[in-house]
């Protein structure tokens, strides 16, 4: 994957670039907003990671400019402040996701993967299928191997999110933000509890486990290779 990183903090960018390269990605880095905008306008990136606060040109302005120019590549915005308005502003400017610094590398990687591999059609697909698991978004039913599984509304949303990102790692934070709309870190095991309940319904009675725990990162739903 070809990734553009616009980040002025040398340490952060070195660490991010190194990590992404280790995971087999091609990284181009610009420490300044203006140079970054030039690179971004050139196109050809699968994902762009842009810092919100940049010398010269603000990260928000870059996103707005490239979106106005018609660039479609997904953008992940990095925010430094515990800014309560940063997320809304970033999404309104045209960013696809945001991540508050400091972040665990696994979190960044999971989000980049989720952005890059977002299959455009799956968003609209009425029925999601992973192995013998089937989720009907219109009828709001779930079956596995033809057997009906009854889920609570939040369990349904959790499974739906996992299935939409099947084969990818989704982090705890991604689940909190997208399933529960929690934009903070709860002090209790909300995610773990719901995952374990979902597992009990989706996996327990079946031979193959579909919901996997990815140590140090999060969860992944898929058929084992």
């Amino acid at each position, binding site marked *: 994957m070809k990734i553009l990183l616009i980040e002025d*903090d040398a*340490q*952060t960018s070195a*660490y991010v670039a*190194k*990590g992404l390269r280790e995971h087999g990605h091609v990284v181009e880095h610009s420490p300044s907003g203006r140079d970054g905008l030039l690179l971004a306008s050139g196109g050809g990136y699968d994902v762009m990671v842009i810092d919100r606060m940049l010398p010269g040109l603000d990260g928000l302005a870059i996103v707005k400019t490239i979106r106005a120019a018609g660039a479609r590549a997904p953008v992940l915005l990095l925010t*430094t*402040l*515990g*800014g*309560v*308005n940063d997320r*809304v502003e970033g999404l309104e400017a045209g960013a696809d996701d945001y991540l*508050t*610094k*400091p972040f*665990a*590398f696994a979190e960044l990687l999971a989000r980049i993967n989720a952005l890059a591999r977002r299959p455009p059609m799956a968003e609209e697909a009425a029925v999601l299928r992973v192995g013998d698991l089937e989720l009907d978004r219109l009828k709001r039913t779930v079956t596995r191997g033809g057997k009906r599984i009854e889920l*609570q*509304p*939040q369990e349904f949303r959790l499974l739906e999110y996992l299935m939409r990102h099947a084969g990818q790692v989704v982090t705890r934070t991604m689940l909190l933000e997208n399933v*529960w*709309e*929690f*934009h*903070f*870190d*709860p*002090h*209790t*095991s*909300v995610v773990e*509890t*719901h995952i374990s*309940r979902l597992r009990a319904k989706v996996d327990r009675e079946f031979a193959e486990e579909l919901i996997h725990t990815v140590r140090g990162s999060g969860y992944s739903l898929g058929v084992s290779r």
Partner: protein
Amino acid sequence: MASPGSFLRSTSFRLLAWYAVVFGASVAVLFVIVYLITLAALDEQLSDSVERETEVLVELYRTRGLDSIVRAIELRTAELRPPRRYYLLQDAAGKRIAGNLPPMKPVEGERVLPVRSLFADPASKPDDPADSHPVVAQGRDLGNGRFLLVGESRYRAVKAREAIVRALAWGIAITVLLAAAGGAALGRGFLRRIEEINRTTRSIMDGDLAQRVPVSGGGDEMDRLAVNLNAMLDRIQALMESLKRVSDDIAHDLRTPLSRLRHRLEAARGRTGPHGDVVIEQSLAEVDAILETFSALLRISQIESGARRAGFSEISLERVVSDVGEAYAPVAEDRGQRLKTVLTGVPLIQGDRELLTQMVANLIENPIRHCPADVDIIIGLALEGGSPVLRVADTGPGIPALEREKVFRRYYRLEASRTTPGSGLGLALVKAVADLHGASVELSDNNPGLCVTIRFPAPAAPQARIPHSRR
């Protein structure tokens, strides 16, 4: 404003009462002096008048003889009506030659005679009320046994004295009334300004540090007090702001080096052997806890700044509460606690969904984390007197009454909860979010346990029906 009862108890009323008493007493003393001096002057005037008349008649007798004095006396007694003068001219035998008084024993010099005693015969008693007053008389021996007496009734002096007493009585009454009215007006003004200061200090205690005591501009002591109070408040506010800025700055500035530290620890993971990895994992957890505290601090600061209000939209508290309740119900269940959500319809409110979600989550996490198993946690949302009221009640150990106010402070943690993880900022954030929405937060005893009540302001009626608010 102060009630009548508090007015009677007030310092300014006591001041006013003393003021009226002292003022009235000094006016009374002044009036007594004026009265005595006036009386003396009137008496003196009367004696002078009698003496002058006597001199005139004596002079007339000496120069013109008996006939002319008799004529003069007859003329005067004939024409003079009140203020009445009395005359008596008698010979050596004690027989009256002229005048309007019966003969008497001749006594020289000035005397005060009761009129009644002069008239031996009750029938000849004067019927004019003016004649019932004592008479100031001057007796003069004219030689040859002839005796002249000139007298003047005190009637006018008495009338004048009565008039003066009446005037003084009215004067004192009016003075005391004026003193009371003026004092009351002054006292009210004084009370009002004291009350203004009290009101200001109350709203400052409620957290509105921008409040100032109004200054009337008269430059009096109250103004100087107000100016000094305001200067003190300015100073306190500046100190608090710089303190807040410093803590925000520290939180902000330490985030960057901590982020780098976190990156380094992550990069080192997996390269130091299994023992090193354990240390790194623990260090990462510590760094994350510090970073989370800083995040929460910055977040509270930003919420308190009110900037977030610009993003308010119409939201359903019911949705927020039921979503958060649903998210936490299995968490509580796994801990052996019972979480129940009781919702009744409330109107939509203007608010920030993200912050309210976090607030409700904090409120629910509190009992889940700090209460033992087998407690009931009840989340209620209901309309009370037009206001949406959110209640989170538990049957756990509760909080001692004395500590209830303190739990809203940043970093405050109950002794009992020091061992459980957390930043100590949870309820501070709840308070900040509630304040942002104009809601009040109240902790009370749930007998047993704790009950947290968030009372939102009653939403404006039309706003609740307009789907898209202008804001």
